[in-house]
């Protein structure tokens, strides 16, 4: 059983790295899954975004401290969304939209998502991780952190993300 983001960065300076990022599914996400399965499946729109680490955008104070299982779509005091990629929209639209396919007991993104750093950007920004969220109804599904903050500070670089998650049965005593 696993749930993970697989992230690849290709900078326009030739830098390339990739990392498999385990993710924690939030309490809000697990509750929403039960609701979808057993009560009402809703026409939620999935969004994916980046967790801000530090630097860039005129910000000098690191805002990241931690992710938590109790984080929700409306309250995640330990982190903030990062928004200097071309696909990132307004503060309410979060980011680009993934589609999913389900096979057996595993769900995967139908195709990887690419975030392209704004070409005008030349800052020295770090991102800390990835999050997956639904809108209408809003719900934070999961957050995943890189092993350490990743620098994405060159305009035109592309961050590519894939996601997968599997489900298993357990026994309640």
């Amino acid at each position, binding site marked *: 059983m696993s749930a993970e983001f697989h992230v690849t960065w290709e900078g326009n300076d030739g830098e390339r790295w990739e990392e498999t990022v385990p993710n924690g599914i939030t309490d809000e996400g697990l*509750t929403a899954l039960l609701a979808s399965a057993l009560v009402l499946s809703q026409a939620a729109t999935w969004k994916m975004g980046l967790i801000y680490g530090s630097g860039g955008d005129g910000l000098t104070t690191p805002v990241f401290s931690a992710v938590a299982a109790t984080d929700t779509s409306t309250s995640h005091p330990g982190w903030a969304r990062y928004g200097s990629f071309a696909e990132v929209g307004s503060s309410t639209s979060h980011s680009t939209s993934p589609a999913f396919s389900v096979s057996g007991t595993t769900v995967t993104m139908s195709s990887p998502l690419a975030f392209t750093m704004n070409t005008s950007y030349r800052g020295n920004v770090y991102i800390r991780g990835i999050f997956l969220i639904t809108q209408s109804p809003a719900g934070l599904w999961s957050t995943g952190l890189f092993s350490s903050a990743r620098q994405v500070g060159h305009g035109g670089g592309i961050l590519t993300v894939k996601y997968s998650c599997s489900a298993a049965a357990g026994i309640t005593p």
Partner: protein
Amino acid sequence: MQGVILSGWFEVHCEGECVRISNGITQQGLNHALLKHFNPSLQAQTWYAGLIDDVGFTGISDSDTHASHSGWSELTSLASADRARIRMATPTSKVAIHSPLAVGENAIDLLPLVPGSSHPAAVKIRGVFMANIATVGSTSSGGVLWSTGLFDAPRTYQAGARLTIVYGCTASERST
């Protein structure tokens, strides 16, 4: 790495006695959960409980589906043509609990004893299952078998008995 783990339980109430049984959510049920959560749609989920007959029982399997469960069959000698309605309340804090809207909607009545009838005075039941098709005895391929649960040993219930079924389910993470 972590994934989702779903765990459930049934309670079977009959004549003042309550038996709680853990249940395994099938692969078909897990697939259903992921499909309904990750693929945008608007659809109410309706669930029903049925009884697993002791006659012919050899076992349950994670790979059982509504259409195919070769190790067991449903007890069909019931007073109603419909399975018991399992109406789930909106989950909170990672737990979904059965919340009946009307008294008796989540009950299964065994056939009463009729003098001169060949119907037995008692039946043995191995367990309970939950599916999204109402009709007793259905093996429709369009149905989803969410879960199955077994008593520790076959239980004998008298003809005419009313079994009231309660269901609950939790979601959590699984570390690997």
